[in-house]
């Protein structure tokens, strides 16, 4: 019988090997897929037991914090947003059932205190409980409040304010706002609200025609490529026939022998249409790329929650070589769709001597013991234009506010450089209303020593950029300059 007993033991060894096989499959090889299963709430429940760090404004105002519920094995943390809807964008939310979004999602690892694999094993051996770090932002609470209330007075839209030299995002406001505290029980309702779309961060996902604000980009390409100088002058008729359609100035006004300053001050469409054609498609697209168009913006928000800006055709970004109506691209119409964030970056690059910094919302990561673990290191995205071109553009943009179409942006005692925009929106995007404008203002102040660059926009309005967007710029810029 001994032979059989040995064989039986061999069978037992084989059976136990099967058990080890299955155990390793679940615990190691298939573990990642299992953790992502819908039915598996375990990873979420575990994360809920970690005290997530706070999110703070630049002045220390608490924008998000975690409060403990229950105790012992029932201990869990729930996210609270003391400022309510003021920072729904761009902070976003983080809840076990509803998931996370925006800043909360992008900075998740810092907020839950996920270090490297090695340090977390050390933590485990040390028996320490995982605790999250605080993340301090660059957001200016006073200016954020001004921006949102200005927007709420005027319509749906967004404001983005960036410190040009560092890329620090000081304001990012989107109207309609939402209160992240309501997400746990109102997410579906918020999602279903198609008129207000409160969960859409218009600052980073609103895709609007830039209108005349885009003339800054066209002018930058013209000057920097050497196509024109600030003195180059040519005629701008009241109307031009482009691609079989008339392209007109406001009130069909014609100008003869004007240079950049005058053309920008009065936002002369036919002048910029001709400039665009002089510059050429390849060069214009190249300068767009340099300003950050046609690429994922380098901001610290989740990729799928930040749209790229550019000329779109059926959801696809067009590039050099694609057939486009260059004259109308040059004046910010055609199929251009841009985000307020992108236009703020254009203003910031002109303000910072032609240098574009990566826009960043976060400023530093602070460990629970107060030790600063990481600091935001301002870094350059690109140098779209030379310092000289930037200076020439700034001069022309000053004229817009002092004597041109953007007078409502003027701040007493401070030189302001800017550009208005009033784009025609396809009527179907504004619920069929025929006179729907996208009103814009982009600019920076003080013009000679810029401290802040801002883009403000209102969608589906009957008014012009100078009427609704320029005052928002003024209020926000003034608030930030006063706070300095």
């Amino acid at each position: 019988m001994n032979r059989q007993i040995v064989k039986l033991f061999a069978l037992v060894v084989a059976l136990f090997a099967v058990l080890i096989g299955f155990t390793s499959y679940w615990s190691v090889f298939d573990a990642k897929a299992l953790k992502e299963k819908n039915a598996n709430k375990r990873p979420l429940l575990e994360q809920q037991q970690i005290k997530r760090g706070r999110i703070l404004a630049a002045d220390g105002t608490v924008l998000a914090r975690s409060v403990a519920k229950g105790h012992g094995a029932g201990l869990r943390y729930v996210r609270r947003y003391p400022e309510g809807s003021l920072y729904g964008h761009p902070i976003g939310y983080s809840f076990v059932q509803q998931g996370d979004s925006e800043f909360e999602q992008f900075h998740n690892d810092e907020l839950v205190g996920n270090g490297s694999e090695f340090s977390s094993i050390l933590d485990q051996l040390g028996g320490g409980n995982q605790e999250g770090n605080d993340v301090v932002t660059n957001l200016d609470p006073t200016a954020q409040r001004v921006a949102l209330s200005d927007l709420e007075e005027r319509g749906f839209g967004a404001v983005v304010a960036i410190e040009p030299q560092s890329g620090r995002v000081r304001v990012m406001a989107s109207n309609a706002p939402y209160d992240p505290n309501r997400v746990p029980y109102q997410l579906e309702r918020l999602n279903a609200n198609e008129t207000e779309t409160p969960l859409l961060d218009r600052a980073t996902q609103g895709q609007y025609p830039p209108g005349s604000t885009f003339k800054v980009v066209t002018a930058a390409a013209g000057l920097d490529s050497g196509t024109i100088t600030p003195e180059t002058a040519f005629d701008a008729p009241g109307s031009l026939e482009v691609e079989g359609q008339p392209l007109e100035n406001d009130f069909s006004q014609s100008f003869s022998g004007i240079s950049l300053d005058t053309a920008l001050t009065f936002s002369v469409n036919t002048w910029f249409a001709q400039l665009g054609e002089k510059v050429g498609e390849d060069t214009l697209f190249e300068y767009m790329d340099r300003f950050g168009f046609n690429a994922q913006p380098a901001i610290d928000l989740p990729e799928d929650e930040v749209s790229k800006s550019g000329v779109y055709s059926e959801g696809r970004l067009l590039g050099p070589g694609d057939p486009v109506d260059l004259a109308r691209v040059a004046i910010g119409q055609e199929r251009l769709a841009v985000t307020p964030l992108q236009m703020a970056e254009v203003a910031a690059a002109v303000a910072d001597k032609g240098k574009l910094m990566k826009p960043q919302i976060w400023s530093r990561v602070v460990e629970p013991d107060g030790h600063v673990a990481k600091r935001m290191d301002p870094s350059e995205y690109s140098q779209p234009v030379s310092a000289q071109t930037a200076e020439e553009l700034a001069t022309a943009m000053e004229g817009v506010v002092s004597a041109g179409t953007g007078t409502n942006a003027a701040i007493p005692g401070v030189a302001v450089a800017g550009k208005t925009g009033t784009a025609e929106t396809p009527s179907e995007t504004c619920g069929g209303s025929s006179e729907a404008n996208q009103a814009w203002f982009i600019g920076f102040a003080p013009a000679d020593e810029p401290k802040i660059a801002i883009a403000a926009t209102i969608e589906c309005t009957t008014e012009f950029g100078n009427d609704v967007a320029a005052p928002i710029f003024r209020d926000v810029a003034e608030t930030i300059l006063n706070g300095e």
Partner: protein
Amino acid sequence: MTARNRELIALFPVAILLTAGFAAVFAQENAQLDNASLIYGAYFFAACLATHVYLRIRLPAADPYLFPLVALLTAFGLVMVYRIDANLARDQANWFVLGLVLFAATIHFLRDYDVLERYRYTIAAAGLLLLLAPRLPGIGQQVNGAYLGVKLGPLAFQPAEFSKICIVVFLASYLREHREVLIVGARRVLGVTIPPLKHLGPMLVVWGASMFMLVFIRDLGSSLMFFAAFLALLYVATGRLSFVVIGMAMFLLGAWFFAATVPHVHDRVDVWLDPYAHPRASGYQILQSIFAQADGGLFGKGFGQALITIPGTHEALLPAAQTDTIYALIVNELGLFGACAVVLIYLLIAARGFKVALLADDGFSKLLATGLTAVFAIQAFVIIGGVTRAIPLTGVTLPFISYGGSSIVANFVLLALLLLVSDRARRETT
């Protein structure tokens, strides 16, 4: 070194491990070290030491590793159960002591275990009666659709745990006597060697008992365990693989038939094949068991770190963590490495058990040791296999680790029988 001295030395690391385990759980729960872990460690060591001294006197030649290995599993189980609920661990510790008492009693009264052969039909009848008991009105209890428990006044137990020993004793004895005729009388029909029909009777009884369990007790796990142990013994006794194949075919045929007709069995199989069909209802336990394992990874989350209930509620995240799915909890907290260690301990026990069978020199001793070892190993396989979805999940305990008095006590009796066989075998060989 003598066998008993080896046993004594092996018990030290076990006691230290238990103490360290308790210390780890204390540290996790109270964020401080408590000398209670030392006290528990001392109690445990004292109990093991007393048993060791008893073995030294009564069974000096018995296998030196079986008892320390079992003590290791028990220590491990105590720590895991304590980590789930301190009150359950107190019960478990009491059962451990009761198990040791019955262990000693078995050794005391069955020193001449040949006596079991004489009462084999009585024992078989007792085994079957035990199996039937959960369906008897008044004392039977239904758990999760299966009739597993018996309640006699304040005493509640799971008779299948004891029944398995009775059945193994009967089969070992029966096959010892009839193995010759089963071999000699076998005929070849259509190229397949079949056992002689007149000796097939008891086999049919065992098959019937398994099917009965499937249908009336609805205990798929025990049914599988019994029948597998029976086939193992049949194979060892006759050396005829064809008998095993026929037996397996009969079992599968019956199981297939009842799986199609008995809803309880049918559901278990369905859940096994597709747990995602009803992730919140019938598939919940197996899915949560697998998710808990996925969370363990290579090294696990550490003692006391696993979530067993949904925080803030009393809803189970890992249902039956202290019994059926305790293995999933082990994987979660100790990782693949910890789980491998547990499986390895079972394998070592099986190896020592089969070694006892190899050394034994009469047929009954050989078959008894084989049967006891096989039923023990298969029990571990059935529940670990169930929890890891290798086979349908059934309510069988993980021997010596799961919370449960019947399981601990019955398995200590099983161990006592193995050591009795071992002592005699090793005395004769040396």
